[in-house]
């Protein structure tokens, strides 16, 4: 009986099992297809549907434009933002998720507020402050981007802590852990998935930022998005722009793939 039922369900779910990954692939492939084609094209004039000549001169031009150095700068910016916004997000998420604050409304508004602020407006306003106070541009960019990343890390960690019982820390304490050890060895590792997600989101805020880096950095900090922006705005070189865009998209995509694979391996190991 149960076998029959599982068979029927299996048949019913078969198309869905194929449709969902197909839709997801479509979601990623559609925007990337023209970029991929351009990155491999030497000549692609309209109204041709496909490039007339294939070649990799776009990659050479990207390298000459300094894509590697810009990507390293973007990675450093992302890492710096993640280093600041993730621990703060852990503290805020813990306090909000476990309702440790007597009046959580105001801190919530302050922490989550940047989500509703336009980055351009904040960057313009902050630019004046940076100039008056003499704060180095790199530091100012990192600080402002950390403020923008904080809502993402806070919301992610709040969800992670909501799924954890605060009594785990008490349990650790009565087994001999100090309050710091209880956090470091029990609740934080137990919230690893949320922590990795929060770190990834904070990194991406730094990695992919354009507006804040441009306005507060004053064009002195050349990151990957800055290169893409300037190429798209002024060069008219679609092959170069596409190559830069793909170069900027690949590292996060690879990181996402590795993380997803590792998470699925952990789940499989746990169920085996």
């Amino acid at each position, binding site marked *: 009986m149960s076998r029959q039922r599982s068979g029927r369900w299996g048949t019913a779910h078969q198309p869905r099992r194929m449709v969902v990954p197909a839709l997801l692939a479509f979601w990623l492939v559609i925007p990337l297809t023209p970029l991929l084609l351009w990155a491999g094209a030497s000549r692609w004039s309209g109204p041709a549907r496909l490039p007339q000549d294939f070649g990799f001169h776009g990659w050479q031009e990207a390298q000459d434009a300094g894509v590697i150095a810009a990507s390293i700068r973007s990675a450093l910016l992302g890492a710096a933002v993640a280093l600041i916004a993730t621990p703060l997000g852990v503290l805020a998420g813990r306090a909000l998720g476990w309702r440790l604050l007597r009046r959580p409304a105001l801190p919530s508004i302050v922490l989550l507020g940047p989500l509703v602020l336009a980055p351009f407006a904040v960057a313009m306003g902050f630019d004046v402050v940076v100039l008056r106070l003499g704060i180095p541009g790199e530091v100012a960019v990192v600080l402002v981007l950390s403020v923008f990343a904080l809502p993402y890390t806070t919301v992610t960690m709040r969800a992670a802590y909501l799924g954890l*019982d605060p*009594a*785990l820390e*008490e*349990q*650790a*304490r*009565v*087994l*001999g*852990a*100090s*309050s710091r*050890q209880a956090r470091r*060895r*029990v609740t934080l*590792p*137990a919230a*690893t998935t949320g922590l990795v997600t929060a770190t990834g989101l904070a990194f991406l805020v730094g990695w992919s930022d354009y507006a804040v880096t441009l306005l507060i950095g004053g064009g002195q900090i050349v990151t990957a998005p800055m290169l893409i922006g300037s190429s798209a705005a002024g060069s008219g070189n679609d092959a170069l722009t596409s190559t830069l865009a793909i170069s900027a998209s690949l590292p996060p995509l690879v990181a996402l793939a590795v993380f997803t694979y590792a998470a699925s391996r952990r789940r499989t190991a*746990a*169920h085996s």
Partner: protein
Amino acid sequence: MTAALRLSAITHRHQGADQSTLADVDLEVQNGQMVAVLGPSGSGKTTLLRIAAGLERPESGDVLLDGMSVVGVPPERRDLTVMFQKPHLFPHLSVLDNVAFADRLRGRNRSQSRAAAQRYLDLVHLGDFGGRRPRQLSGGQEQRVALARALAAGRGVMLLDEPFSALDTSLRTSMHQLLGEVRAALGPTIVIVTHDLEEAGLADRVAVLVEGRVEQFDSIESLYAAPKTLAVARLVGGFNELPGRVTSGAHHSSLGSFTLPGAVEVEGPAILLIRKERLGLTHVDAVPTATGRVVQVRQSGPHQDVVVELEHPPTGATLRVAVEARMGTSLRPGDRTGVVVPAPEGVWAVRDPGADESCAAAHALVTPAVSDNATKNRAETRGPR
């Protein structure tokens, strides 16, 4: 001899509460002893445990471990551990690493701590489960792991906060058996908080906590045979209550006079307590203490309770008593029966908390009440209609 754990005059009031959760509580646990703290919900027993563990600070009073005051010492530096109602296994660690957690904190290397943990897992019959994750365990298995982890912590005192109350009856019984095995093997000092009499029966001594006060600290047998207060009797359950007055070692009430055991110290207004299993049923012609009519026969665990409404009490009041009968009694509602009240060793008396000296006698004569609300075998009395 120095007690392994001593709670001295502990008083505590929760923030914003009108009255104290704990009032002047004393408790002493000797090394290797198991003490149960028995009480209804809200009696303050978990708060008492949390204060002993250092998870809450008392308003006043002292906590002593091996004679040393530890008030102000954080939980991790007290020589005790706690097993909570929920197992609280660490989800990111394997079962073996959960049990090895305390050893790892102490700085032992991974292989040493795992080897030690394996011995405790074997002790709780989960030797093959070390590689699993907590989410792969059943509720009973999780509690076994939590017990192994508490034992592996190697602390002087183990505090158990209703650890088996979420388990079903058969699992709870097997955990009780396991606790017995652990005590026989390791002889740990244990304080267990519970509202379950059967669980309290596992302990050497039982502290009955009612509304934040220790009403009695005694063996479980004494709680059943000689409760110190009406609150203890009601918590233990199974007593018929009869208000009256004690003078010269005898209790006088509408049911007559009963000689009390010598250990009864109460004088004046008092409630006569007779356990339902101590009362007997007999034929009406066999010279019983009283006669009456059966009004209810109900199942009470493996026994049956026969509720008898007594005839012709001197005051004319309606008086009911519950009598425990063997399974398969032939009595049915409406049948007449005789009730036999036991000799002095079968009765007990406690001070009547609801009566003052001036009206006690009148109260006993007008509204003699026999009741037991703890186990629902209510024997009730109504005034003249």
